[in-house]
């Protein structure tokens, strides 16, 4: 199964209520798969092709505000258009699932895979002090797993969850285990699980209002403080990562998604040459596994951050390392995936020899 299809199928099985999207390469398979599957007949899930990404993300807002499990997907230029909506979703504390199959930019860029939306995903992108919970899959299996996990985390925190994929993971075919169908929530369950949702004001409660507005600064500050507390809780409870070959490592790669797969191959090549290198793969990009990376500096002599970008995550690695060991960046961009040989050469030149 393709990564994009696995994501779509897993979303149906996770009990999604609605998908709203607009076509863009390299992720149009998500909506195509959903339309072909007729989830309306399978589970009652609604799938709608919107007039734009702006409309799609606002449909997500309208659906999420009624307590439903709703989602959208797009690729970089479309995700840029969704930023206003994402900011509103965060401000109004609405849960939803968003997938970005990143392609090279800036501008219309290329349809080839890239990792140049790291800043946009983890530092904001839209306006205001907000954070998305960002999951970075590195396999088709994780595309499926993160659809369900993403919904669950979104509801746990009343916050959008972004699955930061790329063209390579979306298009590649791998075997995948899919969880069995989980039923969609009934209207009664929604009223219990999400008592804040706009499900219609009944006599037993006050009216529910979904808004990101607070005209009084003091109120707005309190709202921001509450949001920040939520993000700190994510940092305490949701950090996810994978370490490969780090036990005896003298050097480390830090890479996520497609780059982490290239690094796994590079580790083999390097070890054949007697270089003890391991891989630290952040799975959550926010919250970022900064404590783990900081701990690694007691063992490793240098870190090479490999990204398909001009160097974005490297800034967070440097902040975590605080100058204790050398941190360098190696990247290809514009849609080019680095080869494992290139990565090993960069390690030798920039970290070991440099």
């Amino acid at each position, binding site marked *: 199964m393709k990564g994009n299809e696995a994501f779509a199928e897993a979303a149906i099985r996770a009990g999604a*209520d*609605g998908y*709203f999207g607009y076509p863009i390469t390299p992720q149009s398979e998500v909506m195509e798969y959903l339309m072909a599957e007729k989830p309306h007949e399978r589970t009652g899930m*609604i799938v*709608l092709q*919107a*007039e*734009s990404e*702006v*409309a*799609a993300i*606002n*449909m*997500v*807002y*309208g*659906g999420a*505000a*009624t307590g*439903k499990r*709703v989602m959208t997907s797009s690729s970089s230029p479309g995700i840029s258009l969704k930023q*206003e*909506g994402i900011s*509103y979703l965060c401000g*109004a504390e609405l849960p939803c699932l968003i997938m970005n199959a990143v392609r090279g930019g800036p501008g219309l860029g290329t349809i080839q895979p890239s990792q140049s939306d790291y800043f946009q995903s983890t530092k904001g992108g839209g306006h205001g002090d907000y954070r998305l919970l960002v999951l970075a899959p590195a396999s088709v299996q994780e595309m499926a797993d993160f659809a369900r996990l993403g919904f669950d985390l979104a509801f746990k925190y009343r916050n959008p969850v972004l699955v930061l994929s790329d063209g390579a993971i979306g298009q590649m075919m791998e075997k995948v285990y899919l969880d069995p169908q989980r039923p969609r929530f009934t*209207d009664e369950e929604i009223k219990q699980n999400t008592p804040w949702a*706009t*499900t*219609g*004001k*009944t*006599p037993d409660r006050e*009216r*529910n*209002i*979904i*808004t*990101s*507005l607070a005209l009084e600064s003091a109120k707005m500050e309190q709202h921001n403080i509450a949001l920040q507390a939520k993000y700190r809780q994510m940092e305490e409870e949701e950090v996810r990562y994978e370490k490969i070959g780090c036990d005896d490592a003298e050097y480390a790669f830090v890479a996520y998604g497609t780059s982490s797969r290239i690094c796994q191959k590079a580790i083999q090549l390097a070890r054949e040459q007697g270089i003890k290198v391991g891989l630290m793969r952040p799975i959550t990009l926010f919250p970022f596994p900064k404590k783990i990376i900081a701990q690694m500096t007691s063992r490793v002599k240098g870190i090479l951050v490999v990204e398909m970008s001009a160097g974005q995550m490297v800034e967070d690695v440097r902040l975590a390392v605080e100058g204790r060991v050398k941190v360098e960046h190696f990247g290809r961009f514009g849609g080019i995936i680095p080869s494992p040989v290139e990565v090993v050469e960069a390690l030798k030149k920039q970290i070991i020899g440099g």
Partner: protein
Amino acid sequence: MAEAIVNTELIQPENLVYKRTELLTPNALSYCPGCGHGTAHRIIMEVIEEMGIQSETIGIAPVGCSVLAYDFMNIDMQQAAHGRAPALATAAKRLNPKKYVFTYQGDGDLAAIGTAETIHACNRGENIVIIFINNGIYGMTGGQMAPTTLPGMKSSTSPYGRDVAMMGNPLKITELVAQLPGTLYVTRQAVHTPVAVRKAKKAVRKAFENTKLNKGLSFIEIVSNCNSGWKMTPRKANDWMVENMFPFYPLGDIKVNE
């Protein structure tokens, strides 16, 4: 504060001629005195009360003077980004097909920044109600030119009057959406006199009843005043509206399908 003079002899159930709907909260309206928004709120809430659908209604108000509509309407409400209410309503309704979903939008919101969402929700025939308050100006941001500002009309961004050669023509979006197969009922109303209010309320009732038919979108334009933005007294603003807005935006039904 002056003490209210209460004539207890007169306040008897049999003398009751008018009662404020329970669906308006006790909060004092934040609108300028004489503004049409308050009356428009009232008739919508009265219709929801009369139909007994408070627990089945979801209201959506975006940015504009009515951004705080949820402070006044005692129903579940969503606040939308500028122009996006019809997109929110689309999903809210499709995911909750038994609910009544309406949007309440200004002219800048509906006919400028939100044109795409408006046209496409209308064209898809979403089973929602759109209430469109056309006051020919951007009220909330201080009286700038709107897509509906009349030719020659002054605003803070057309201080010498709207020059259509330079600034383009006013957009009659209501006539435009009436062309679309997805709209079931399209009408233009006003709320400046008791007679107009009664007619407008009938239209709102019809629109909400239409939701049950599941046959398309109901679109109600309410031509309204913005005395602050127009820089007129409420009285003068209403007269000006009758003399200038109504000839350009004639009142009445534009499309009535069953």
